[in-house]
Structure formats: structure tokens, C-alpha cells
């Protein structure tokens, strides 16, 4: 299945990429997704994505803790928002 991964703001700049399409097995969770990202972008990228102030959204809803993805889902990694 295919998952679209998006990076925003300072994360997008530090990773040098705004999105990534990951092909993975069905029912991939966040940990599994990070392993795919590690193979593509490296350890430093995963460390940046796992920073305590980075929030994760699945299909534009914040998630806390783990989540399981399905084909076509969009996962976003977001540094702290500035607000309006």
C-alpha cells in the first residue's frame, strides 16, 4: 500500500524534502513507517521526526501515540505551530 508522508516548516527545511511516498505492507503503524523513512532519509531524519515537540497528523487529524495506516493515508510531521 502507499502512504503519503508530508513534512512542514522547519522540518521540511532540515530534511530538504516536503513529501515522500512510502510503499509498505498493510496495517503499517507509525513505528513501521519510521523504519521505512530511516531507510530512505537516514537516522538523523528519523531523530528529527521523533523530537518531543513534533506532532503527527493522520489524514489531517492530530494523533497521539501509535496509529495504523491504510492505503492512501496521509501522515504529516509538524514542528510546533505558530498559530494565526
Amino acid at each position, binding site marked *: 500500500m502507499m502512504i503519503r508522508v508530508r513534512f512542514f516548516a522547519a522540518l521540511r527545511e532540515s530534511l530538504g524534502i516536503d513529501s515522500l511516498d512510502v510503499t509498505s505492507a498493510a496495517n503499517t503503524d507509525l513505528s513501521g513507517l519510521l523504519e521505512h523513512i530511516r531507510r530512505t532519509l537516514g537516522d538523523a531524519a528519523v531523530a528529527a521526526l521523533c523530537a518531543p515537540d513534533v506532532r503527527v497528523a493522520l489524514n489531517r487529524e492530530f494523533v497521539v501515540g501509535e496509529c495504523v495506516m491504510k492505503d492512501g493515508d496521509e501522515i*504529516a510531521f509538524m514542528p*510546533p505551530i505558530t498559530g494565526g
Partner: protein
Amino acid sequence: MLKRIAIQADDFDIGREWAELRASLSGSAGAMAAFCGLVRDQFQSDSVHTLELEHYPGMTERSIESVLDRAATRWPLDGLVVIHRVGSLAPGDQIVLVLATSRHRQAALDACAYVIDLLKTEAVFWKREVFGSGSRWIESTSGDHRRAADWQNS
């Protein structure tokens, strides 16, 4: 309740937004309140050349809608409008507009203040200030969080 959220790169015309909201109201509304935020030319001790705003299409609108929905449960409102700009803005530019209408003035004024205060901490935007010597991503301030918390507790 009328609810309008727009995220746009273009500037907005407060007079036109005001007139459109007013024209949509039934006779019950007795008050309209407005807040317009502008880009400041100073951040801490640095002169800001431009302010760059990034958003997450779809999620940003959803984060604003959540604030408007909560405002509508607190006050008897006839309409709420939020227009927020993204992209590259210069000092003095309009950045955000909030309009609130209600039967009575206090509800319109309070709802307007509530919406802008919560947008400061909840709306999904990232801002980067560009100076002569470089740029930096900024975060919402402790004052922003305090005002948002005050509304949660009131």
C-alpha cells in the same frame, strides 16, 4: 450560524467582507465586531523584512473551524468570518480578519476576542520572520498560551 473560513495569499478588503456579512444577516443581529491583525516591523530587537506563513491545506481550515464551533457554543452568534493570509507578507500588511455578529454587542466583542486568542495557539500555521541578517521560525508566545488558557477557564 453563518461560518466562513478563507485561507488566501491575496489581501482582503475589510469593507467588502463587512458588507457581505451584514447583507447575509437576518434582522435579529444587533452587533458586528471586527479584529484585523497586521504584520509588525519589529520582532524582539530585529527589523522584520518579510513574514512568511506556511499552512497545511485542509488541516488549517479544520483547526480554525474547531475554534469557531466552540465560539458558537459559548455565545448566541449569527455569523463568524475568519480570513487568514499565507505566503510572504511585509510589515503593515493585513494578515488576519475576524468578524463576529450577534444579537448583542458583548457577545460579538467577546466572540471576536475569543476567536483571535485561540487562533494564536491552535490554528495550524507556521511563521518565519526574515531579517536583513537571516531568518527564523517563530513559535507562539507564553502570553498567547496564557490568553487561550484564560478562555478555557472562564
